[in-house]
């Protein structure tokens, strides 16, 4: 199938400073692409380039097979939901939603039908005669989405749409957006700085930093095999433990030696067929470190560790211990008896361990 959005060698600069460097991304119809990264990484600029709100300096951009590089936003067959919702303050909700159709000269009957359909879908029928100023944050969010949905575009663009909502509402709306995506089977490009949003919503994630794409992949790929230290650290909460280690080869594979300030070095074995250099940074997700006895498997190894801190988080309890000079977080079951200042046997599962080169930060396995 032809990609619904195809970006080739896109560059964007303001004067001397290059904001986006050689961006290549493509998505299929029905894909939910999330652009994620810290602020200033260029993700919003990229979205604006896709929308045509910012001209691009070099490269090519097609939407639904048509070259849109030089086409103005209104002719790109896209709809966009903004961080501040950008609802027209003097128009009622109904007028906000139908404004685009009105501008395009869609006849009144179609407008009414579409408005009805969308407002029912988003459950905002009772708000149609209000002005944006009289709506709550969540309601505005819905109206903004309604304005996009009613257009029935080839591509939806979302620019951090949930960042102005409180935590509870954010989770609700997240689910709602996911549901909409599934019902409508729409193609979406979605910008966020929240990696949980990225993980929960995306079918495809693009992690960006400093105007450069760090990794493109499914949520699972990004989570399990981060391409570099940045992605590893950025995606996941609590973040992946990144611990400096020294590698010794033996007959079966590698022994990973991690120094500890207050006790003997920790030595773990990774028997996967790898080819690691002497100095590495090992990446372990908190859930890959458990209380001894709660995790079993071929790659699981136990070792006593000094507990520095215990953080109960409801469903789980996080335990922090020092490894390789870094505070390392382990995810334990809620009923653990671990106490700060005491030793505890931890089980390390190296089956999913990632290795990175300390100098370049690139993934080694």
């Amino acid at each position, binding site marked *: 199938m032809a990609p619904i959005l195809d970006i080739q060698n896109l560059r964007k600069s303001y004067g001397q400073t290059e904001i986006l460097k050689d961006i290549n991304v493509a998505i299929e119809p029905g894909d939910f692409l999330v652009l994620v990264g810290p602020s200033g990484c260029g993700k919003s600029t990229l979205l604006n380039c896709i929308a045509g709100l910012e001209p691009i300096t070099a490269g090519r951009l097609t939407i639904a097979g048509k070259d849109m590089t030089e086409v103005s936003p209104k002719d790109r067959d896209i*709809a966009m939901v903004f961080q501040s919702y*950008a609802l027209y303050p003097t128009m009622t909700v109904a007028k906000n939603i139908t404004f685009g159709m009105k501008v395009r000269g869609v006849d009144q009957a179609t407008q009414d039908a579409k408005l009805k359909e969308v407002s029912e879908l988003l459950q905002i029928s009772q708000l149609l005669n209000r002005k944006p100023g009289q709506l709550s944050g969540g309601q505005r969010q819905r109206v903004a989405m309604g304005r996009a949905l009613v257009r029935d575009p080839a591509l939806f663009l979302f620019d951090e749409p949930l960042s102005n909502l409180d935590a509870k509402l954010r989770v609700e709306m997240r689910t709602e957006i996911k549901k909409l995506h599934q019902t409508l089977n729409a193609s979406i490009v979605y910008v966020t700085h929240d990696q949980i949003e990225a993980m929960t919503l995306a079918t495809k994630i693009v992690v960006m930093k400093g105007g450069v794409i760090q990794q493109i992949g499914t949520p699972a790929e990004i989570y399990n095999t981060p391409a570099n230290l940045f992605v590893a650290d950025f995606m996941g909460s609590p973040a992946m433990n990144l611990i400096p280690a020294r590698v010794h080869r033996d007959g079966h594979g590698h022994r990973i030696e991690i120094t500890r300030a207050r006790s003997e070095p920790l030595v773990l074995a990774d028997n996967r067929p790898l080819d690691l250099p002497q100095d590495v940074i090992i990446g372990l997700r908190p859930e890959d470190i458990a209380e001894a006895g709660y995790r079993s498997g071929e790659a699981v190894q136990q070792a006593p560790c000094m507990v520095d801190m215990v953080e109960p988080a409801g469903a789980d309890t996080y335990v922090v211990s020092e490894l390789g000079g870094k505070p390392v977080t382990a995810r334990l079951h809620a009923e653990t008896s671990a106490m700060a200042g005491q030793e505890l046997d931890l089980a390390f599962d190296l089956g999913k361990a990632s290795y990175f080169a300390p100098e370049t930060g690139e993934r080694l396995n």
Partner: protein
Amino acid sequence: MTDTTYVSARAGTRSTGQRLGRIALRAGLYAVLILFALWYLMPLFVMLTTSLKSLEEIRTGSLVALPREITFDAWKTAWSGACSGIKCEGLRPYLWNSVLIAVPGVALSTLIGALNGYVFAQWNFRGANLLFALLLFGCFIPFQVVLLPMARMLGILGIAGTIPGLILVHTVYGLGFTTLFFRNYYVTIPHELVRAAKIDGAGFFRIFWSIFLPLSLPIIVVTVIWQFTQIWNDFLFGVSFSQSGTQPVTVALNNIVNSTTGVKEYNVDMAAAILAALPTLLVYVVAGKYFIRGLTAGSVKG
């Protein structure tokens, strides 16, 4: 809520002495405000009382005293009988000229200022800031400087001595301030609004017309008040660029007030002055409330 209760609770514990002090302070505050109000009103009071006196009373009595006998003759004369040159038609015909100049002048300079401000605030392009600076500097050019070249220009354009000529002059020299007002107001409106509308398919003018203009009432009020006052009260342009038949009311007022021979009819002068100023006064009184509101809405936020 909690803050207020806290404060009022503290106030409640104050002693009677403190409360008396507060009342005294409050009374002092009102006294100062009223004193200043009297100061501001003084010239208007003098004008009003004088316009209601007979010439005889003006000659004999104190200028600042209330009229002993109220007469509206001076007002009648000022309106339709006072002489300006050989015509003795009062201010009436000239008022209409002023309206013909001020209304299109205000409308044009406001509309163009709004469009300019909209561009400067929302459609920035390279060099726009320099342009804006050049425009602002234009606000400060003393009008005496431009009289003669402007006269030549109006002659070249073929609208010397006409009302369109005066409208052009007032519009051009009003643009600096109107653009400043609108630009400062529109920069407070998020750029995303324009972006959303662009994606909705609206173009430059559609966005302006459907989205920005409906938002602009407060700043339109400020601009209209400002421009109307400027244009209505203008004398220099009015006297230089008009000819017989297009002279605005300020020129007629000047002819009535500044005639240097013969018996000075101060009551007529004053009545004429108030009549000439009535439209601007009315605008301030009626729209004054929106004026502050409009200023609050963003035009002054630097």
